[in-house]
């Protein structure tokens, strides 16, 4: 029936507000001169469902990659950050008779120069979203009426396309639609949960991260967004990933809320043997915090999107690796088998810890990767890149399988959930690291003071011992004291690196029946 509706009659139905129509533009966000007549085109390509998508990924992996060319022209060319932000898209309701969940196609411009194709699935029918600049409002502070008028004549024929999309729903208040996820740029996406603002990002796939010959950034080239069931906000997004070395099919079932959960599966079809491959990559920023504050001329106390890499290993060991902004690039691998989960976390949730009234780092989410099938042997890899500002992500974490992934007709499938939330969903009752502080010793500048504060939601067991190690050797001088709040415990010791450039530090609080805390890890690097 849907295919039988002519485009003209379809639009008339939308504008008169009559059912049944799959999609329409949200009136409030509709620019006055917008003509939606030809926006949604019944597809002539694939439906975007999982099996056909996997077939497409498999098929293109047997050929040389045909990647979209970066394309910016006309009004979309040469925009700085503020001008780009002044382009505002109209929102498309995803559900029939219901504008409680909207999709905003995002304009090209600024650093977003790769066009992506967007399609919407409703019922049996898939519609391609034609690129039409008329869907955008151009802020008068940055664009002249003449340039805007000219832009409305630009369309996809010039190779221009949307750069991504975002989804909005009533996340924080029933009367306001808040953005909860955005897919934009290479294979990047990021999400928030209730009460949080955007922070770290995730990606579909990482290849050759931190490799000398340069990283390869796979692209999501096509998206299919499936309308949720009536009154549901669980949106299914499927995407085709492509890059020189690998093609892949992705499916995300996205449920926004207190925790925004993305049930994910991906099927990868490498075009070559890929050794340095990163599954479920997370990308974040750590500029500075109390572990290294000296020499940073900044009024704030801490600036980071994440403060630690958190891991629950296959055997259930809890690890907290404090992040750093090292003087040189650092790669750490945490070897494991069938990990239960890992993620980058922003544990400190008080404004006082950061003191940034605009960026509000205390409201940035943590993201936790929970494998849903056995991932076998491999490593959680952490990469820390030196930065001097907060505007470049410098932290990457992902799963790297032990064996390289090579070309295969079946492909390589990984299933996992991403949890975007204030704290990681691993709530096992244990002492947890709250802060890591470090500095020069006042008595001996060759020594560093290492201070790690633990908190516990419940009472600490009696008879706690500190198990502290430096490069595997026990540190006998570690002290354990109660903090004045009556709850926190502090482990402190002085460490003299001597000629050692890199020291792996490790602290666990041991109770009579085993670990009473997660294990704190840190790589201390001589400046």
């Amino acid at each position: 029936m849907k295919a039988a509706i002519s485009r003209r009659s379809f639009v008339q139905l939308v504008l008169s507000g009559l059912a049944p129509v799959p999609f329409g533009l949200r009136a409030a966000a509709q620019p006055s001169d917008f003509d939606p007549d030809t926006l949604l085109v019944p597809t002539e390509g694939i439906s975007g469902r999982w099996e056909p998508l996997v077939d497409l990924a498999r098929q293109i992996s047997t050929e040389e990659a045909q990647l979209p060319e970066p394309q910016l022209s006309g009004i979309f060319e040469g925009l700085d950050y503020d001008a780009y932000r002044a382009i505002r898209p109209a929102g498309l309701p995803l559900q029939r008779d219901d504008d409680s969940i909207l999709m905003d196609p995002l304009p090209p411009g600024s650093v977003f120069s790769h066009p992506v194709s967007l399609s919407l699935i409703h019922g049996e029918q898939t519609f391609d979203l034609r690129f039409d600049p008329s869907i955008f409002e151009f802020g008068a502070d940055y664009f002249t009426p003449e340039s805007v008028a000219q832009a409305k004549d630009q369309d996809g024929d010039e190779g221009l396309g949307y750069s991504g999309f975002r989804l909005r729903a009533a996340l924080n208040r029933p009367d306001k639609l808040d953005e909860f996820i955005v897919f934009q740029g290479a294979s990047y996406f990021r999400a928030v949960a209730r009460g949080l603002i955007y922070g770290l990002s995730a990606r579909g796939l990482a290849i050759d991260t931190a490799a000398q010959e340069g990283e390869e950034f796979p692209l999501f080239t096509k998206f299919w967004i499936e309308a949720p069931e009536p009154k549901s906000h669980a949106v299914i997004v499927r995407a085709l990933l492509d890059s020189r070395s690998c093609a892949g099919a992705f499916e995300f079932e996205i449920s926004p809320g207190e925790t925004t959960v993305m049930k994910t599966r991906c099927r990868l079809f490498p075009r070559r043997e890929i050794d340095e491959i990163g599954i479920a990559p997370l990308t974040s920023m750590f500029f500075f915090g109390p572990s290294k504050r000296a020499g940073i001329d900044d009024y704030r106390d801490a600036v980071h999107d994440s403060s630690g890499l958190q891991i629950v290993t296959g055997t259930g060991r809890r690890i907290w690796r404090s992040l750093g902004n090292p003087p040189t690039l650092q790669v750490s691998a945490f070897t494991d088998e069938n990990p239960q989960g890992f993620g980058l976390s922003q544990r400190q949730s008080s404004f006082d810890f950061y003191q940034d009234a605009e960026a509000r780092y205390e409201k940035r989410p943590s993201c936790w990767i929970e494998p849903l099938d056995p991932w076998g042997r491999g490593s959680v890899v952490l990469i820390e890149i030196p930065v001097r500002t907060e505007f470049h992500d410098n932290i990457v974490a992902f799963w790297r399988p032990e064996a390289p992934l090579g070309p295969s007709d079946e492909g390589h499938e990984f299933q996992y959930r991403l949890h975007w939330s204030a704290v990681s969903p691993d709530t096992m009752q244990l002492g947890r690291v709250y802060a890591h502080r470090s500095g020069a010793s006042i008595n001996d500048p060759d020594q560093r003071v290492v201070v790690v504060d633990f908190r516990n939601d419940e009472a600490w067991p009696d008879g706690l011992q500190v198990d502290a190690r430096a490069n595997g050797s026990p540190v006998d001088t570690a002290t354990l004291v109660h903090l004045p709040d009556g709850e926190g415990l502090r482990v402190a010791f002085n460490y003299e690196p001597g000629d050692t450039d890199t020291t792996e530090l490790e602290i666990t609080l041991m109770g009579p029946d085993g670990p009473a805390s997660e294990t704190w890890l840190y790589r201390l690097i001589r400046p």
Partner: protein
Amino acid sequence: MCATDDNHVRDVPFATDIFDIPADSPARDLPDGFGFAGFRVMRPDLEPDWVSFLGASYFRTDGPEGQYGLSARGIAVNTGLDRPEEFPRFKAFWLGPPESDEEDLSVWAELDGPSVTGAYRFGLIRDGESGGHVTHVAAHLFLREDVERIGIAPLTSMYWYSERDRVTGLDWRPEIHDSDGLALETGAGERIWRPLRNPGGVATSSFVDENPCGFGLIQRDRTFENYQDDGVFYDRRPAAWVRPRNSWGRGAVQLVELPTNDETFDNIVAYWVPDEPVRRGDELFFEYDIEWRARDPEATDVATVVATRQGQGGIPGQPIPPDTAKMVVDFAGPALAGLDRESGVEAVLEVKNGDIVQPVSAYRVVGTDLWRMVFDFRQHDAGPVNLRGYLRNDGRALTETWLTDARTDLQ
């Protein structure tokens, strides 16, 4: 050292047998009558001491939270000048009964120095009505020589670094100081907050006044998290608030800041300097209270400064402008209750030897009771830039006056 009652004076002679002395200590060989270094007063039942007179003319109390911090002195002579400071000393003490019901103890002291001698009476109050200990001071001074700079009611403290200049601290602790600011209540009733600095060279600042209501070195930040020192507890260190009791006339509160790179030595001094030159043969009399409090007396009608922060200037995401710094000043207090971004609150700023980079913003930090004044400034020459600011609404000052000397480069 003498003990007195209304009718008698009794010598307390020095003898080694009144001390616990380790077996291998050379102090065991000190002869009887050698002399004490000073004394301290214990709480009842020999619980910890709460006041101590020790070294030169120094004395201090452990304040309302049982933690010694800054000190007071009997007198300061030629502090911060380009020649050695004189340190007159209390060379004799008499301890006796209190002179009023509120006092716990009287101490009389004889001060002796190259340029000045003095007769002092201290009335010591433990846990007074202001929430901490109080020291009544009456000082009769007799000048042996002309003195270029005489400091009345001197306070001595330590400031290494704080949230303002954390960039300079190599230590793991976020802040290290016994005091974070000089607070003033002028004769005209203006409340002033001058955050302390650890300057590159000796810095002297004068705040001209007539019959000041009070001044003090204050540790306003009372939060453990901001110091993180679980050994010496900078968060519990007392403030000392000097309240004149006779007419001090015209003069200035002077603040001397010395450069430091550790926490062991005091580098901050504040005192009153009379306008009138001090000549050989002069006699001076000053009477005042020192209140050892958690912080300076609450201002009734204005909000007060909570924190001063500084860092490189500019707008996030844009190139960092050269020779520009950002200043962030937080205020809190009942005078700001109920105000929001639409209330018309504005920041009033004056600058000398520099420029303010517009815009200056003033806003409530979402989710807190703090009001934040933020601006960038530039320095004209070697500096420092003199900054003075407060928040205003409908022509009325909402806050005390914040003022500071600043350099764009803290390092």
